[in-house]
């Protein structure tokens, strides 16, 4: 396959970026997007040019490291599939690919296609956990959890933290991410003792770091983990619930 690839090049956070066009003549349909960039970078290094910086790690769609906007769509053409599992077989020979970083005010560009997504971790650090110290947990079998409840929690906890939901959102909102976190924890009995406390922390940081949600629902179109749309309503629901419960932790 021959592909024309327009790539966002930006030296660092403060420098202005620009698109640069490259050509790859020996792409193959089974190549993933990161493998296409490997190929292109090999070409660039051989030619003595600086290769394109991009985030990538597990290359099987679970670590959430990769994230490229392809022709305006975070992660690429195939819905609900991470960048590393997008293959060129969904593109035609001779097609034009425009590769950009995840675009969001909360994700400053570090270099080329690499963005800083640390805002997501600040959301987690503000309450997105269960406060149990090592060794103090009760026997997990004494805590009976119905099959479907565990499965439902897993539907939400499947989030890989890639940030595509934010990049897809016209407002740059992180409600799918934060809602998945809150829904996972509020579904499980383990998350109940500090449910309100968690909601207050997580929602405050989410609102501080990211934009507001207008229920465009663009996020669920791209989410590689298939987080259900109900997650976004969990943010307001959990916040309202926490407000009603005033100073209570649970």
């Amino acid at each position, binding site marked *: 396959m021959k592909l024309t690839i327009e790539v966002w090049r930006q030296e660092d956070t403060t420098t202005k970026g620009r698109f640069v066009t490259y050509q790859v003549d020996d792409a193959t349909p089974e190549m993933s997007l990161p493998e296409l960039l490997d190929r292109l970078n090999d070409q660039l290094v051989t030619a003595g040019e600086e290769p394109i910086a991009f985030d990538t790690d597990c290359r099987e769609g679970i670590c*959430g490291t990769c994230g490229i906007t392809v022709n305006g769509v975070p992660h690429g053409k195939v819905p609900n599939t991470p960048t590393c599992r997008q293959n060129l077989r969904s593109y035609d020979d001779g097609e034009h690919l425009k590769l950009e970083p995840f675009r969001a005010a909360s994700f400053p560009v570090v270099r080329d296609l690499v963005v800083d997504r640390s805002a997501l971790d600040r959301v987690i650090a503000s309450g997105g956990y269960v406060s149990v110290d090592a060794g103090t947990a009760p026997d997990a079998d004494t805590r009976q959890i119905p099959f479907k409840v565990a499965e439902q929690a897993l539907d939400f906890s499947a989030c890989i933290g890639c940030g595509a939901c934010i990049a897809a959102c016209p407002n740059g909102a992180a409600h799918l991410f934060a809602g998945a976190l809150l829904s996972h924890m509020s579904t499980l009995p383990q998350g109940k003792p500090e449910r309100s406390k968690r909601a207050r922390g997580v929602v405050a940081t989410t609102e501080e770091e990211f934009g507001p949600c207008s229920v465009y629902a663009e996020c669920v179109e791209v989410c590689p983990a298939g987080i259900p749309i109900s997650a976004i309503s969990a943010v307001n629901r959990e916040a309202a619930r926490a407000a009603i419960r005033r100073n209570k932790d649970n």
Partner: protein
Amino acid sequence: MNTFRTIGSRIRSVVGSSEGVPRPQQDSPDPAAPQEEAATSAPESTGNAKKPLSGPAALKRQGPKGTQGFVTYADEPLNGNVPTGDPLTAWSRRKLDYKLVSPLNRRKFKVIVVGTGLAGAGCAAALGELGYNVVSYTFHDAARRAHSVAAQGGINSARAKKVDNDSLERFVKDTVKGGDFRAREADCFRLGEESVRVIDHMDAIGAPFAREYGGELRTRSFGGVQVSRTYYTRGQTGQQLQVAAARALQRQVGLGTVDLRTHREVLDLVVDDGRAKGVVVRDLYTGEIEAETAHAVVLCTGGYGNVYFRSTLAHNSNVTAAWRAHRRGAYFASPSYIQFHPTALPVSSHWQSKTTLMSESLRNDGRIWVPKAPGDDRPANQIPEEERDYYLERKYPSYGNLSPRDISSRAAREQIEAGHGVGPLRNSVYLDFRDAIGRLGKKTIEERYGNLFEMYFDATGEDPYTEPMRIAPGAHFAMGGLWSDYDMMTSIEGLFVGGEAGWGYHGANRLGANSLLSACVDGWFTLPYSVPNFLANHLGEAPLPADHPAVERTVAEVRERTDRLLSIGGTKGADHFHRALGDVLYSGCGVARTEAGLKNALKEIRALREEFWRDLRIPGSGRELNQELERAGRIADYLEMAELMCLDALDRDESCGAHFREEHQTPDGEALRDDDDWCFVSAWEHTPGKGAHPGKPVRHAEPLDFQAVPLQTRNYA
């Protein structure tokens, strides 16, 4: 009482001697000959809790010394500080012997934990919860991205609740036998004992384990065992555990006990007076070289299977931190013990960057087969039942498709080499779900393996619901790693190791679902006991100041090395060398090894290393995000480590577990162990060499004792 901590002092003397005094060399390859010499050159005093071995028995247990010319051999056996007596009670006795640090004194200590996978995040969070100051490093942009996240199938636990006759002893037996008797038995008991609380803890911090309809934890079976002790969350157990652990770590970040520093790669260890006292790191975003000092350093930096280039590991997984520690004096145990996962995706094209893992859990329901006729070109579904060879079921009827990984990988390789391979390159075998779908229905299979099937479809464009998957052995897990004693301390005092970066539990072959377990046990339930035992002796000491000569010297060395890499000015990118190295290792030090193949690989590795330092090209500078520079540094270390892997494989003149030397096999083609000569772990010491090449490594041998599980031939038939 703390008489265990004697390794450090002994190592110091050994490391010290490597600088000036020539190392004692054994001239005779005859293992029986150097008895007198060893007896006379034994050190004055070791003061070990465990009596040092001496005399002919000790020599016997240090193994043959047949690879003179390539490596050298230490005289004295290595002591693992394993508690004497019944291994069943070893851990509780040892814990009782450990010194404690009072809660008020804990904040006076600083511990560096490198890596934020299950071992690193667990260790950092647990030490933070206890009240220590922790500095946690990861090269990822977020703690939760560490590669533990990619483990699919599950986590074993000896909870033994069912009536399928499981028990702690059976867990240990399976693990020791699965590792082909090259693991430390006492460590395996600790692994099994702590496995019970691991499940409780991970469940409590939010990992949604699969549940039965009655609400209890659900389990499944994994390779190499006949009970059901694997706990799981769909096909994403690693992710759920890793995300939970990373959140526990973030909780400590929020509380201020852990200082988490992301996008920073540890490039060297600060060693002063024989003790690990800090690390030198590079901020990957800015290129800044920084130093951090502490009372102790813990490396939980994962495995090195990525040395094969195409593996089931993540793109950025590397051996650098562990290898730099090795170069500073930490022994490297069994580097050649690499597990090839039998259910990885086959290689189909040049630019394919990994052999993605298809979870072993698939073997619960999938049947592995090849066409009986070599070179059979028909599509799988057109090959009639009687023309299919379900070779695992045929050769190993009691374990069948759930035979251990090393055995399954070897069997697949045998079929492929005999011309029965399938797929366009004839380099794979079928994993067929037809019968399971017929028996259980598509919905059940989808429930069990839905995301794996999707992943397979994405990668290959083939639908595993209608045609069989194609799989092949791919480099996966490193059973070897930095050597440590029973307390997880390496041969450098104050340097600890946890998770896949270490060695102890898995011997020469790891059982499925024991990897997540060992990382969790080390991080949450072993290091938080053993690190304080070390710290307790250093109350009142301050970490080294930033301008201490040892710190400045290490920083200067890191800068110098970075500059050297940048200034080569050749023509090829780092990936070129990585791919070439992978090819050398797959053919020379892969699923099966021979003396000739290993010697050839050694030559090729040395040539490749020379080419690397002559012809590498890194565009850009070191003062910015430069991924080519990151890769080049990692590959430079792989090019050194690969040599040690081959030397270890060449030296170990027996077959055991995943280390299959073709010279040593039974008439049926099974691995033929040699317990008389090789029942020990090889722990290699680095010696400085010339130019880009390391010197001849020194083999130290820690004899392995098996009290609860008597040595026996592994038989899965």
